[in-house]
């Protein structure tokens, strides 16, 4: 049987050919990485190695021709500035720590899953499970996000410029999700302590989720997140969804 071995070994030095110096912004060196020439394995290894090569400036890497490839810029642990110029596949920016990653296009499933810190911005739309289990950081989806956005959220913050699909924020434990459009069915099913703000319609609430009145702190939270996400909307137009906390302990009536 054919072995799915990694395509190349780790890079010890600055890549050449596909990774060429590009235009400089604010004095930081820009590196262009062309995925039509060099593979994902090499890219990730190069980005991981940034953690071992201290630099005075935040590295700026532009990833060209992503063409829907999966697992780009996963497991980063330094405050690098990464731009993915085009549509990308699954698990983009997975488990991100500290890096600022922008996708100038759409993404597949599970963008920024288990993110710990940093900022991930998708200028297009995201498929399912965006921000799944994110423990920290900020995920911005400027377009729509599909189903299960913010599932199992553990402290991360998500701002969606458009709408989210069904079962979004399912079992979300902590953190905040701001939805500027509509929410699909079963929003916030089995919520713990995460809080959801929705501006548009809510198709239906999931088990143990309930709508609550907006308080001053809620308005401030929404305003702050919208500002950080650079998305314009009036915080007064949002509604708050949180856990009714009726499923926190087992009892005979908890039969959803």
């Amino acid at each position: 049987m054919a072995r799915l071995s990694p395509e190349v070994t780790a890079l010890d030095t600055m890549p050449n050919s596909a990774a060429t110096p590009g235009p400089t912004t604010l004095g930081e060196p820009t590196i262009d990485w062309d995925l039509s020439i060099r593979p994902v394995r090499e890219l990730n290894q190069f980005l991981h190695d940034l953690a071992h090569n201290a630099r005075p400036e935040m590295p700026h890497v532009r990833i060209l021709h992503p063409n829907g490839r999966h697992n780009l810029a996963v497991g980063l642990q330094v405050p690098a500035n990464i731009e993915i110029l085009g549509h990308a596949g699954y698990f983009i920016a997975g488990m991100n720590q500290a890096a600022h990653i922008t996708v100038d296009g759409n993404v597949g499933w599970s963008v920024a899953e288990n993110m710990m810190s940093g900022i991930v911005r998708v200028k297009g739309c995201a498929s399912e499970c965006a921000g799944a289990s994110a423990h920290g950081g900020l995920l911005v989806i400027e377009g729509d996000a599909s189903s299960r956005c913010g599932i199992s959220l553990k402290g991360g913050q998500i701002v969606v410029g458009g709408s989210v699909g069904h079962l979004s924020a399912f079992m979300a434990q902590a953190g905040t999700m701001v939805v500027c459009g509509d929410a699909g069915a079963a929003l916030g099913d089995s919520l713990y302590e995460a809080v959801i703000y929705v501006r548009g319609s809510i198709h239906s609430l999931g088990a143990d989720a309930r709508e609550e009145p907006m308080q001053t702190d809620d308005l401030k939270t929404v305003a702050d997140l919208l500002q950080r996400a650079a998305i314009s909307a009036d915080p007064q137009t949002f509604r708050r969804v949180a856990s009714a906390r009726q499923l926190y302990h087992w009892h005979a009536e908890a039969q959803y």
Partner: protein
Amino acid sequence: MANEESSSFNRHVMDYIHRASETGLYDIRGLGAKRNLPTFDDLVFLTASASRYPLEGYREKCVTTTLLGTRFAKKPLELQIPITIAGMSFGSLSANVKDAVGRAATACGTSTTTGDGGMTREERKSSQTLVYQCLPSRYGFNPDDLRQADAIELVIGQGAKPGGGGMLLGQKVNARVAKMRTLPEGIDQRSACRHPDWVGPDDLTIKLQELREITDWQVPIYIKMGATRVKDDVKLAVKAGADVVVIDGMQGGTAATQQVFIEHAGIPTLAALPLAVEALEEMDVFGEVQLIISGGIRSGADVAKALALGADAVAVGQGTLMALGCNRETWLGPDGPHDARADYEKLGTAPGFCHHCHTGQCPVGITTQDPVLETRLNPEEGARRLRNYLQVLTMELTTLARACGKSNVHHLEREDLVALTIEAAAMARVPLAGTDWIPGHRHF
């Protein structure tokens, strides 16, 4: 007939119905299936005689070294014995227990495994080889711990509750457990039954690649599954790119789940193992993708039979807890043994019958987060007992291997076994003793 007990509605069944009608709640408990199932006890070895010659039991070398993760990982695991410690969570177990398990495993040259709830500093420190579980709940899962793991085990399910998520009742969710899991203290915690970021086998392939990319293809990745549709599941795991497949039979334990799950879901370990081997053989990766079997492994004989049927290693969970003192009458303090029977009685049980891990009131200080009860398990003493147990399992294993004429425990083979019952013969795909009949497979 006046005093005849009904087979269908016996006292156990009546108790169940009375309790259900009284409370409106189903039973939740710990440990594994208690019903009578076909097991490795139903197999025996055809040790050497005139047609085979044995190795001398005490002196001749019998290799137990076990390699796991040779398919893709740059750093496969090399264990000294084919007996690993199954994943058990901090939360269900105390930090002292995780420490003790790590010490014993390290002394025996084998691996321990984290569980639902993340990696504790105690187990990382005490375990030379630590397998880090990636579970559906993702409690405490983070890239820093991922990078310091020696292997990753992506858990799809477990034998005690395949298709079900975990439970940790509020009495065990103390401040530390709650913080590690990002949950409010004291709630009855539910772990998700499916992963948050992938759903089907095609997604799983990409998920595995993500974990490999994050860890730079250094460490092996296992996929663990409860034993249900074993053949299909193993094939999908192989296709997804697993280095190691772990199959957990229905006798596998848990810290807490519904009784109906424990007794009525999944298939016995004995039936699961040959199916997994068959799947690997059909995929032409037997030996390339390693197989770990778990679920009710108790003795060196069980280990030997598992290896003979095609496993590369076993994982032991409940046996580990019992070695530490689970269900013993006493716990050992600095001043000697203390009687724990009154504490068992408070739980409505007795030593030998207890499965009250879910209550957090473990009389011997193992499955608890209670700061007082926790002290009943001294990590050093626990490590000593577990080390002894692992040593006995290994000695029993090599005893049988040598008697079969094998200088390496991995040379044990299916041909070395026969079955004592028709059921075991059919499940294990070995002949019924005294015949060449394998029901359902040969000489129908």
